[in-house]
């Protein structure tokens, strides 16, 4: 499971495609328990990400992910901007000067990204946020000797769906209290798409 620059780019491009397809769905979720801008925020942010990274030639992974991060930080006005921005910035730092990352390095990077999200947003698992998808996924890739991509995809999906029954403790949805129960968290839904896109990209290549 080697992360090359080409594959990292493909991951971002695939994610953008999924976000554009699911934009209305993400917006509906955020309309139910937030302010209704999550689909728009993500669609605008990743459109800009693709515009930036697609024509650029990168020598290292950290340069690529730094561009992703800085684009999100400057173009996404909601909580997802600084949160995803911090995640990709930490991933970039973890992959400093590498033109490709083996599985161990990449998993380290994903763990750093998760830690970044938690440091930025101060959310814990169970608070009904993107952390409820990120943390179990990172636990899974850290603990398995073989990563099964279909399992990774299934796990992310299941954890996203489980946010439906949670009461929001962070962000806009927390103002609703118990009334936030019954809707999937929009940030958990977009994070599922991020990991589903990752699984997609690797399925086309090697994965030991």
């Amino acid at each position, binding site marked *: 499971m080697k992360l090359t620059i080409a594959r990292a780019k493909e991951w971002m491009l695939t994610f953008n495609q999924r976000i554009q397809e699911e934009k209305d769905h993400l917006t509906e979720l955020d309309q139910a328990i937030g*302010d209704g*801008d999550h689909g728009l*925020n993500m669609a605008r942010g990743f459109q800009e990400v693709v515009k930036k990274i697609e024509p650029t030639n990168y020598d290292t992974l950290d340069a690529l992910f730094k561009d992703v991060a800085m684009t999100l*930080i*400057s*173009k*996404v*006005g*909601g*909580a997802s*901007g*600084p*949160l995803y*921005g*911090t995640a990709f910035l930490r991933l970039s730092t973890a992959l400093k000067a590498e033109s490709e990352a083996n599985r161990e390095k990449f998993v380290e990077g994903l763990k750093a990204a998760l830690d970044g999200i938690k440091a*930025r*947003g101060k959310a814990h698992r169970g608070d009904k946020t993107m952390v409820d998808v990120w943390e179990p996924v990172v636990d899974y890739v850290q603990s398995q000797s073989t990563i099964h991509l279909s399992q990774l995809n299934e796990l992310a999906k299941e954890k996203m769906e489980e946010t439906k029954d949670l009461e929001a403790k962070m*962000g*806009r949805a927390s103002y609703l209290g118990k009334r936030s129960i019954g809707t999937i968290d929009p940030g958990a839904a977009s994070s599922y798409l991020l990991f589903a896109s990752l699984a997609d990209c690797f399925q086309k290549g090697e994965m030991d």
Partner: protein
Amino acid sequence: MDKVGIVLVSHSYDIVKGLKTLLNQVQPDVQIAIAGGDNGGIGTSAPAIMEAIESVYSEKGVVVLFDLGSALLNTEMAFEMLGEDRRIQIADAPLVEGAYAGVVEAGFGNSIEEVVEACENARHVKKINR
């Protein structure tokens, strides 16, 4: 600049624009900058907050007040981008009342710690005596 500067962060440009006008009337000698909205819409932006802080920064320091949700995340992000050696602090206070108290305090030439405290004390002020 011999007074602490104030930065107002909100999801809405109109909110902080109006608030700044109100505060300028109370104390025209305190430098106030605003970071409201994002790319012309509702939201907050770390680069915009960073710029606002820079525009009123001095040795005396800058106190930032914010409204909701991602305003705090983006303010903390802006602090990181500015570097650790800056005299900047976030006040955990209601935006209107906190900024009012803070501007008054800053107007006396008091320290950044005193301005933060004044902002945060505004949380406990009762608006109606019953």
